[in-house]
């Protein structure tokens, strides 16, 4: 933030070249870096060291301005020279707008010579350039952005979260509750979801140093939500910054053109299906992130009454950030609740720290917390293995480990209590523990409705078997044909166990059959939909012709009434028959079980 000096305003071009330069360099580095990451952890380590070194250079370069190391001078000498002369010329003219323009121009010129040698960053740079310009048009952000990328070189350390691919960002900035979006995005959305009615949302820019401060916190994983609370402009801009710095559009370079194509369709119904289809082709992490961002935006426009933002205006503000057209963003916003019906915005509760006073008390909560802590622990381990070691990290490692141990102990006491109660139950029924527990688990579900029966049994049965196989005193053999566990003939539970196993088998068959039928029905639905779409075009044509011959109004009503009544009746009959069918099937299975039991 040494770059905030007033000189910047007097000589706007002075740092612009460096900023642009640093930017292009950065994108190169990071693509290298992420490739490294995919190879192996060792490579990653090397990549990081290299990364660090390069960053150091950048920093030196940015700070020293013209006096750069020889190798860098080779690439950048000409642009920075041409640039300086130009900017000096323009600074003499006092018009602010002109200055903006000149910077734009000089930035472009500065980039030209570099764009030639490396082919990969070229595309990215161009895009970034374009995007930048769009932003300037809409928000006049240029100066801030340039400063931002210059300051970044000082801030970023080791593994950044900003400016890397979505999957990398998720890996480095993980939400530990199983939602795979980067933590920084989650925190911003969580904050903004609480402030939807605020009129300033997405309209006010934060203090730049504050924004950069948060970026650094997240890049270095030093963010502590308890201490560093976001504010509205920062949350908006941090989210935008993250999205803007993604090396690839969120909709991916491969698919973005097809998305745009679909968005230019006029037919709304068709649009939705096609968008859905395209969304399924996106990498999972991109889809999830897109879902969260769009659902949040939708929530914003639902509060239009308060924040004065509707789909059109919000898309105007944010479509450049998402690297998509205004039209596409409006289309996505319009369909997003159906497109992402499977996604829900859930506020993030970070893993406990030893500072947080209340440990969870119920079994479920403990288990949930435990899985969060496990996720956190494995992230710490993998980062440490890759060389991301700080004193703070080490302390965190011990702390997380301690919390896990505490949670596990607590869970164990729960289990012990439960075991005790089960033991008591067993004693009262005076049956050997293994089979008794099996009885209790299995007799219940068979009475329950059909769908849940098959599921719950399939879950319970293997457990029961496993428990059985653990008990050494009970001898058993496994039937080679069916895989059933056979107890010796003398055992009183032989028949019972066999019966349950056969029943399980039969129910599984039924489940599979039903699943197959569901698939078939879905196919039929799909086929009919297509047919309908075809027909609807035809019928629109036909409708005009038929209209003249239509019967009088009262007839219509009578006919409609007749059919609705008839349909309701049929629906009821169908349901009854369905129930009967289920009953019959169950009886069938019972008989089947008896029949097969005879074989043993």
């Amino acid at each position, binding site marked *: 933030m040494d770059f905030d000096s007033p000189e910047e305003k007097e000589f706007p071009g002075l740092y612009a070249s460096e900023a642009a330069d640093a930017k292009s360099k950065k994108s190169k580095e990071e693509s290298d870096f992420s490739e490294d990451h995919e190879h192996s952890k060792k490579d990653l380590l090397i990549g990081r060291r290299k990364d660090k070194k390069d960053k150091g250079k950048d920093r030196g370069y940015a700070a020293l301005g013209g006096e750069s190391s020889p190798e860098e001078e080779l690439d950048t000498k000409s642009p920075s020279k041409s640039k300086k002369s130009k900017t000096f010329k323009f600074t003499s003219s006092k018009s602010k707008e002109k200055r903006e323009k000149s910077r734009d121009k000089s930035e472009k010129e500065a980039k030209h010579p570099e764009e030639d040698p490396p082919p990969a960053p070229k595309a990215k740079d161009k895009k970034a350039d374009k995007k930048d310009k769009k932003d300037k048009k809409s928000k006049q952000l240029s100066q801030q952005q340039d400063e931002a990328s210059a300051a970044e070189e000082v801030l970023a350390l080791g593994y950044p979260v900003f400016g890397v691919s979505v999957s990398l960002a998720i890996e480095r900035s993980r939400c530990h509750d199983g939602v795979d979006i980067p933590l920084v995005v989650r925190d911003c959305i969580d904050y903004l979801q609480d402030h939807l009615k605020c009129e300033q949302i997405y309209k006010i820019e934060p203090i730049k140093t504050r924004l950069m401060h948060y970026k650094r916190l997240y890049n270095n994983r030093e963010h502590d939500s308890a201490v560093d609370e976001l504010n509205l402009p920062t949350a908006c801009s941090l989210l935008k910054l993250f999205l803007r710095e993604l090396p690839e559009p969120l909709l991916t370079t491969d698919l973005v053109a097809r998305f745009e194509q679909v968005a230019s369709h006029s037919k709304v119904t068709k649009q939705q299906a096609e968008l859905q289809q395209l969304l399924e082709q996106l990498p999972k992490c991109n889809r999830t992130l897109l879902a969260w961002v769009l659902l949040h935006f939708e929530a914003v426009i639902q509060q239009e009454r308060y924040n004065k933002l509707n789909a059109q205006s919000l898309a105007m503000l944010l479509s450049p950030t998402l690297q998509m057209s205004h039209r596409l963003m409006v289309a996505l916003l319009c369909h997003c609740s159906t497109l992402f019906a499977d996604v829900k915005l859930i506020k993030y509760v970070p893993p406990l720290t030893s500072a947080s006073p209340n440990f969870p008390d119920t079994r479920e909560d403990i288990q949930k917390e435990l899985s969060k802590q496990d996720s956190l622990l494995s992230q710490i*381990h993998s980062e440490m*293995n890759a060389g991301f*070691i700080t004193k703070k990290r080490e302390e965190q490692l*011990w702390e997380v480990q*301690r919390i896990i*141990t505490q949670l596990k102990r607590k869970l164990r006491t729960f289990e012990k209590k439960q075991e005790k109660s089960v033991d008591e139950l067993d004693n009262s029924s005076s049956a050997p523990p293994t089979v008794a527990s099996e009885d209790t688990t299995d007799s219940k579900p068979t009475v329950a409705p059909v769908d849940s029966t098959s599921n719950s049994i399939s879950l319970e049965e293997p457990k029961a078997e496993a428990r059985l196989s653990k008990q050494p005193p009970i001898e058993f053999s496994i039937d080679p044909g069916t895989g059933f566990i056979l107890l010796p003939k003398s055992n009183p539970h032989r028949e019972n166990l066999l019966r349950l196993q056969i029943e399980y088998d039969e129910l599984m068959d039924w489940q599979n059959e039903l699943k197959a039928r569901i698939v078939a029905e879905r196919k039929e639905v799909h086929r009919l939909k297509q047919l309908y779409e075809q027909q609807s075009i035809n019928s629109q044509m036909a409708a005009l012709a038929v209209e003249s011959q239509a019967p009088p109004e009262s007839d219509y009503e009578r006919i409609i009434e007749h059919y609705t009544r008839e349909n309701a009746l049929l629906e009821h009959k169908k349901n009854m028959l369905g129930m009967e069918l289920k009953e019959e099937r169950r009886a069938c299975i019972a008989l089947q079980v008896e029949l097969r039991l005879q074989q043993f």
Partner: protein
Amino acid sequence: MSKKPTAGPALHKVIMVGSGGVGKSALTLQFMYDEFVEDYEPTKADSYRKKVVLDGEEVQIDILDTAGQEDYAAIRDNYFRSGEGFLCVFSITDDESFQATQEFREQILRVKNDESIPFLLVGNKCDLNDKRKVPLSECQLRAQQWAVPYVETSAKTRENVDKVFFDLMREIRSRKTEDSKATSGRAKDRCKKRRLKCTLL
């Protein structure tokens, strides 16, 4: 290594190492909660913190109970690096666990890069003396070679359980004061070198 003054009582970080099933968790739980667990459940990693009074001074001890199995060797380094003292446990009824201590010792020295790291060789299950497979003399010889104390414990009877933890804490404490006294790096190096020679003999 020096403690931050803000952290309150001094904190000593102890790590339990040794083969699977030798009683690392049993020792830890006995020390922490005065309980003896009969049934064996492999540990992945567990960590505990306890306030104790060490020679009249209130201190905190962090105990990290590690996995004996090789499967978790990858995460072991991360823990070893932050450990200040080590209890290297084996079972006196199991010769292989005794042989394995050599490897653990090497791994610790490799990670810590320090021959004089506070370290105790602990022969557990001394209540099962009738099933002893590792002769006492052999244990003592190895401890002598490494220039570390040797203590026999029983997690079951609680024999020497407190002793090993407190002895180790004392070593860690004296090591810390030594370190803060030896302001120049050279003094530390010399100390290390001297130790090295000892082990070579």
